[in-house]
């Protein structure tokens, strides 16, 4: 009984209106019982629903900022460019080929020298040919992995360290306004380290014959990528 009354309030019968009074849009078009059968043929209902659906909300533009923004900005920088990713993963691959202690010392040297390069950029010391240096790092490190070059430990650290300066100079200086410099730096270094760890992780396949061939193939891919970036940098 109560349910019927409610339905009648929403969809009053034509006879509820006094004679001569113009019925409202919903009253004119809705037949009692339509709603109960799961059909709503009232255009006004759909018009209101459409209006609610299209009603604009207050814009909540939440640009990443502050503490968390600084950290995630730092994390995303090294992985945002394929040229950097290739070189950093190649460091891990080469380290895995060289074995201990190079496997651990190269990923120690790279972030430290990269931070040094970033510091040079921040204090305004120019490093010529940064983009070319980054591309060449891909070519050379790829070639080292491809050729499975067993370089002496000191030579490999110097080589990786020099290339790291270019990478740091390019990436370490891009802190957005209002973000926390400390957390940006932290995210930047952690992300770089994780890329090396990823390379070392892949490099563990080196203990199998097929894995050794696969690693050299990966080196070839890095080298080709480096050549592409070198071509782009020169052009």
């Amino acid at each position, binding site marked *: 009984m109560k349910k019927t009354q409610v339905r009648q309030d929403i969809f009053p019968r034509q006879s509820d209106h006094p004679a001569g009074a113009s019925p409202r849009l919903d009253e004119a078009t809705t037949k009692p019982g339509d709603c109960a059968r799961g059909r709503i043929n009232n255009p006004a209902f759909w018009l209101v629903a459409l209006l609610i659906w299209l009603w604009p909300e207050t814009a909540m533009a939440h640009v990443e900022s502050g503490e968390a923004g600084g950290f995630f900005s730092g994390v995303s920088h090294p992985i945002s460019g394929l040229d950097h990713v290739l070189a950093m993963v190649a460091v891990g691959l080469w380290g895995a080929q060289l074995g201990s202690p190079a496997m*651990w010392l190269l990923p120690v040297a790279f972030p430290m020298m990269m*931070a040094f390069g970033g510091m040079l950029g921040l204090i305004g010391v120019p490093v010529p040919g940064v983009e070319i240096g980054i591309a060449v790092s891909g070519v050379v490190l790829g070639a080292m992995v491809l050729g499975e070059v067993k370089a002496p430990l000191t030579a490999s650290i110097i080589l990786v360290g020099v290339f790291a300066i270019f990478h740091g100079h390019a990436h*370490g200086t891009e802190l957005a306004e209002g973000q*926390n*410099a*400390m957390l940006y730096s*932290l995210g930047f270094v952690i992300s770089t380290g994780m890329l090396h760890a990823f390379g070392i992780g892949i490099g563990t396949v080196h203990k199998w014959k097929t894995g050794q061939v696969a690693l050299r193939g990966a080196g070839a891919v890095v080298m080709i990528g480096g050549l592409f970036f070198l071509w782009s940098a020169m052009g």
Partner: protein
Amino acid sequence: MRFLRHVFCGFVLLLLAPATAQAHLVNTGMGPFYDGAMHLALSPDDWLGLLAAALLAGLCGAQAGRWTLAALPVAWLVGALIGLLSLGIPELPGLSILSFVVLGLLVALDVNLPAWGVATLGGLFGLLHGLFNGAALRAADAGMLNVLGIVTTVFVLLLLVTAAVVSLRPVWTRVAVRVAGSWVVAVGMLMIGWLFRGRI
């Protein structure tokens, strides 16, 4: 030689350059003790250095760990009390950065210091950062309970990390600790750059 002397003087001046106090005491809603604990968690230059100190103490053995565990929190407490009761202690971000770079470098190089050496370094680090914490708490009208929150958190973190590092046996785990130390140094070098840029 003269140029190098000028560079050195510039570097020292930079380290001693005061910055605007950034008293950022968080209100956790759970009282001043936990506000203090959260203060440490939101101060990366504090906990990064603390991490480096704990790693160094762990690498240098159980004895160094015990001594550092006694020296660092006590020094932090003393420094914080001095900072809380004194007026006009400037915030010196350069010195703060240098402190954790030195500790990180010692970890990365796996320098085997005697226990008293590690404890002294830890104590100096604790005193310095406690002093800055105390000054920041004074600026935020905070009190003794906040200091206790900070120092207790320092003690717990130091204890956990040092104990974890001391118990590491495989060689590669020791290398992983050294890698973490190198990351601390890397962050510190970037921070020196940002200091030059005036972004700290």
